[in-house]
């Protein structure tokens, strides 16, 4: 116990240092950026400085908020659907060889089709509303969840499977007792990837045609050369993606700690 406490303290110090280093680097990059823009007197519509971006964030805050909520809604709906589907198909492909053989290639091929092509197609099929956006997000998020989960379900601890067989457990029983719990860390790494993709997926889907959303705000800012507003939009996309990532990480820690994974 003593020992773990002291290493815990060391970890804390290490974590602090791990936090300080990137913070220092980020701050210097932002400072350098601001200085460059100031010294070379770069026009705001070509490259706005951090101060311009913050100013834009503030002046456009009401508009940005409504657009963010729309995008966030699409991303969350798509992400949730993708998680459910990803887990179901992951289980299916992890358990049945035929399902893996039949579905895996389709999923891989689906990932190679450019979203930029799919988005207008969905607009033709499903209109410019909420649904086509959600479908795009599902397409983006589904793959990492299903694939990482399947991969980890296929990692077999031979000795454990053997002992379970000796105890009379069939294939399904050992799948439930040993393989699913062991695949949970893999599932969560897929969820984290999917979470970061979800906002981006929603934004891309909005580019093609939408009434509201960060993607639409972005295209509007772009066409009117309000570059600072464009950057403000990007900042929000990054922040939202990070928040989703952190949320998943939090849930992961809770659950994996609870079932005690190391």
């Amino acid at each position: 116990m003593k020992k773990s406490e002291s290493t815990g303290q060391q970890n804390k110090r290490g974590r602090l240092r791990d936090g300080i280093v990137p913070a220092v680097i980020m701050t210097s990059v932002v400072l350098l950026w601001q200085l460059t823009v100031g010294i070379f007197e770069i026009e705001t519509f070509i490259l706005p400085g951090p101060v311009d971006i913050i100013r834009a964030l503030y002046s456009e805050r009401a508009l940005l908020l409504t657009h963010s909520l729309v995008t966030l809604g699409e991303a969350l709906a798509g992400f949730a659907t993708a998680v459910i589907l990803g887990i179901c198909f992951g289980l299916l492909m992890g358990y049945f060889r035929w399902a893996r053989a039949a579905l895996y290639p389709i999923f891989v091929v689906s990932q190679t089709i450019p979203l930029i092509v799919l988005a207008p197609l969905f607009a033709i099929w499903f209109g410019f509303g909420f649904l086509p956006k959600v479908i795009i997000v599902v397409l983006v998020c589904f793959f990492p969840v299903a694939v990482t989960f399947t991969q980890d379900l296929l990692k077999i601890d031979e000795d454990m499977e053997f002992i379970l067989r000796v105890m009379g457990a069939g294939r399904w029983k050992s799948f439930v007792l040993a393989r699913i719990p062991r695949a949970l860390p893999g599932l969560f790494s897929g969820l984290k990837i999917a979470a970061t993709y979800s906002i981006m997926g929603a934004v891309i889907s909005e580019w093609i045609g939408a009434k509201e959303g960060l993607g639409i705000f972005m295209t509007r800012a772009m066409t009117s050369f309000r570059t600072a507003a464009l950057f403000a939009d990007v900042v929000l996309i990054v922040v939202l993606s990070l928040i989703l990532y952190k949320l998943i990480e939090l849930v992961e820690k809770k659950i994996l700690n609870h079932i005690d994974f190391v």
Partner: protein
Amino acid sequence: MEKKIIISNLSMVYTGPEEDDGSGLGVLSGVSFEVYDNEFVSLLGPSGCGKSTLLRLIAGLEQDYEGEILLCGENPRHKRIPVCYMLQKDCLMPWRTMLSNVLLPIEIRKGDLEKACEEIKPLIQEFGLQGFENYKPRQLSGGMRQRAALLRTYLMDGEVMLLDEPFAALDEITRMQMQDWLISVWEKHRKTVLFVTHDIDEAIFLSDRVLVMSGRPGTVTGSVQIDFGRPRVRDMILAPRFSEYKKEILDLLGRTKADL
């Protein structure tokens, strides 16, 4: 006395992808021996002589062999006969508590878990695990994990215990403690045990009888009856008779080497 395990003229050729270096590998050839009820028999041999394979065959988990196996009077080829089995690795699930790991065999055969929980309380005590019921495996010492694995093995509801080098991964001192403790538990509960090891001292100390196996393809080259009384005590390893047994076993092992 009743014969619990009868092996007659057992041969096996392995043609799996991992170990195949040609047309197939003779793993076992013409193995014959018997284990009596409540007897503690060790299978001793160099690594790769097919000892572990032999246990798998007895448990009925591999069927690709020639010859005859009778376990508790029945053929494991035709019917699943429950056995207690233990590997070198403890195979405890890291996400389960010690208690729910130990109760796994009962859970799998859909037994009454609450009743079992009450029933195994004295066993938990005896296996030196009391107070650690809700600990996760990683919080237990190596010896404790192995004892938990052994208790789980014990609860597998078979008449025969097949132990495949259960202590091989432990350090010398822990291994000795585990042997002392295993033998005291066994002397109390008495089950038929087939114990695979490559440690000669361990085999003599624990067993009623030591079967010596040759290298690949494995076959039984000799059987040494160990006539020390029970309960066994550590001091016996200093007895002259212990050395005589050891020499006899070494000779049997050496002879197989000369044959190669």
